[in-house]
């Protein structure tokens, strides 16, 4: 019962958030520039442009335009991209797999590297390797992602010639999903962008796992475990690490949203044909329908992941009270 109440409440909140996002997205579009400038050549007369603006309904009052937008939006139509000349949602959906695969690639890297490194640092906090990892992670946090990306391109693509410098490579069709996971070329192309994207989150997770685990290692039940004479591996991984995971999962879920934001930078450096790059290009071209659609889609992803994490968290750890339950 609590769950149902919670779910309904979250759903209503989500709808409200989406409404606010659409309103903000729609009201900033006038400040993004003049879409007509990107649609016509420079020598086209002002009269001609004004006539086109009229035909496209861009001269209507704000509320008329917003009303028209919402009327179509509730039917699932977020307008047509000026540049792609196709429904904005269709364009975004076509680019979504590339971004998702990049996020998955980065997430896998984080899991495979941050977990062992974080655990190692917690177990040997004084060791030189731990200190090195900690120092290195500070560097990792402070170097901007586009710098990491360009550095990687120059070292591994230009100088060494081991990796491709841009793009997604060959993709194959997997049940309608245009995937780069199934071809060697696609996987090779995924390496550098994934490392760049992972480089932002990696230090955060190493530090999070380290500090959580160090805290847990000080707890009484761990001391009891040591006193019982259990083997270290059992204490570390079965007793301590399991309890470390809870906050890590929570933060991880929320960070997926942040990662989506960072894909904008990573994708534009690597010319990765995903949503983030699409968004940056849309801003440059003042492709307003596409910009608004992107904001709404990403807003939706944020809302959905946050809700999902909340539900997961309360389910994994029943001692946490549901928001709004009596």
């Amino acid at each position, binding site marked *: 019962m609590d769950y149902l109440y919670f779910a309904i409440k979250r759903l209503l909140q989500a709808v409200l958030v989406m409404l606010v996002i659409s309103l903000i997205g729609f009201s900033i579009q006038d400040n993004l520039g003049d879409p007509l400038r990107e649609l016509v050549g*420079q020598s086209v007369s002002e009269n001609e442009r004004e006539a086109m603006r009229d035909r496209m309904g861009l001269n209507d009052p704000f509320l008329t335009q917003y009303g028209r937008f919402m009327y179509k939006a509730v039917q699932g139509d977020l307008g*047509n991209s000026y540049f792609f000349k196709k429904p904005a949602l269709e364009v975004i959906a076509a680019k979504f797999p590339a971004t998702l695969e990049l996020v998955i690639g980065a997430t896998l890297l984080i899991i495979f590297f941050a977990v062992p490194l974080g655990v190692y640092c917690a177990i040997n906090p004084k060791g030189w390797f731990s200190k090195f990892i900690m120092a290195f992670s500070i560097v990792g946090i402070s170097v901007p992602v586009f710098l990491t990306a360009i550095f990687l391109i120059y070292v591994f693509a230009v100088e060494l010639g081991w990796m*491709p410098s841009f793009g997604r490579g060959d993709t194959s069709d997997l049940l309608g999903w245009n995937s780069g996971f199934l071809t060697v070329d696609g996987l090779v192309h995924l390496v550098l962008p994934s490392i760049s994207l992972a480089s932002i989150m990696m230090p955060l997770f190493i530090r999070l796992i380290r500090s959580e685990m160090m805290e847990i290692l000080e707890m009484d039940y761990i001391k009891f475990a040591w006193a019982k004479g259990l083997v270290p591996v059992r204490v570390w991984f079965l007793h301590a690490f399991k309890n470390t995971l809870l906050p890590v999962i929570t933060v991880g879920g929320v960070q997926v949203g942040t990662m989506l934001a960072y894909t904008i930078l990573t994708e534009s*450096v690597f010319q990765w044909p995903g949503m983030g790059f699409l968004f940056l290009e849309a801003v440059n071209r003042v492709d307003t329908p596409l910009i608004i659609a992107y904001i709404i889609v990403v807003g939706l992803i944020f809302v959905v992941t946050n809700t999902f994490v909340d539900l997961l968290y309360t389910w994994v750890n029943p001692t946490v009270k549901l928001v709004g339950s009596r």
Partner: protein
Amino acid sequence: MRKFLTVAAAAALCFGLSTTLQAKTLKLAYDADPVSLDPHEQLSGGTLQLSHMLFDPLVRWTKDLGFEPRLAESWTRIDDKTMRFNLRKGVKFHSGNSMTSLDLVWTFDRLKKSPDFKGLFAPFEAMNVIDKNTVDLVTIEPYPLVLHQATYIFAMDSKFYTGFDKNNKSKSAIVKHGDAFASSNASGTGPYTVMSREQGVKVVFNRSASYWDKKSPGNVSEIVLTPIKEGPTRVAALLSGDVDFIAPVPPSDMPRIKKNKNTKLVTMGGTRIITLQLNQNRVKEFKDVRVRQAIVHAINNKGIVKKIMKGFATAAGQQGPKGYAGYKDGLKPRFNLKKAKRLMKEAGLEKGFTVTMMAPNNRYVNDAKIAEAAASMLSKINITVELKTMPKAQYWPAFDERAADIMMIGWHSDTEDSANFSEFLTMTPNTETGYGQYNSGNFANSKVDGLILKSQSMTDPVERSKVLQEVEQILYDEAAFIPLHWQNLAWAARKGIGVEKVVNVMNFPYLGDLVIK
């Protein structure tokens, strides 16, 4: 892994070579891919680059700004207002239809309807069919730039574009946004056809087997065009061998490309002028020619070219570059700080004044840095500049409002002719006629207006050139605007790709004639 793949690919290529000896692929990276396959949808460099691949014009520019026959085999002037074009026989469109004079007339009529191109074709009255292979191009008044404009007439396949598409819309419609037949389907006479196109990701072109120009040395059978937006990534892709040919090239990466043993750089003086305009309606001081001259003399544009553009530009003293009809040899850059200070003193403004300035930061090469340099140079004559730079998307609306006292604008003449600069930048603004549309300085000189209007109907090139040179002289003496420089053009390629033979000052490489060794 990559090395292994390269070896594997090379091995595969060797096997392939035995069967198809000519198969050459060009991997090309521009900063953007074409917005549409419709040659009449948007008047832009990208559209023209594409047009020269899929279509052929009546005539085209040569490297030294002359004309060479393409679909028109020859042309003769019939009278003051009429030029007759004899069309090449036996030319086929990609659809298999034969090209006739009817296709040319159909194309011309469509140009007259295109919002982007109809301005360029306003001086023309009609194109008339004489017989199956002959057309007459008729202008309203005697007009000197008939051949210039004929470079924009790319024959479209009228039968292919006639009828209705699956949405019951006319196939010939020119639609700026929204799904139109001509935006995604094309049939021309050009050297290439589109094999596949994923917008923003890549376009694959194949050489047309039935291309009429059997004399063309071009041997590239496939072109893969990938847009790479970021300059450093584009350069990295070239250096690592992922692409063969890139444009534009960021000036800061040019030494690296020159040094690399596998790549080469091809540069050329460009035709796009970068200027600053002084708004006389907003600032009363700018009405004084001495103040305008002082500002021109205070700006060290040679220094800007050297330090900021890294030598990748030509400092300018006038609007049109060398080779254009109005270019006058004596009009040189005028940096002279002493003279600038003296002029300010004469105008009684040695204490200076404060003005605002706006410039884009992603439109021209190093635009924001140039604006900053100009602003600091003006401080030497005590003019304090409050500078604001912004992305082009926001800059153009601000420019339309004339939102600052000094504004930056670059201009490339669509007709490759001097008069076009004045028509847009320095003639008295007039909303009726559209002249002076980008004259944010509100510079007004009835003599300039008169001379430009006169030049529009002068068909004697020598006399006309004198008139246009006089215009440049007046603008120079009046300091109508601040000339900065002409942006150079640059392309970079792997060695063995004969780009230097096919690139030109208009920046539409004739890829049909490209030879790969």
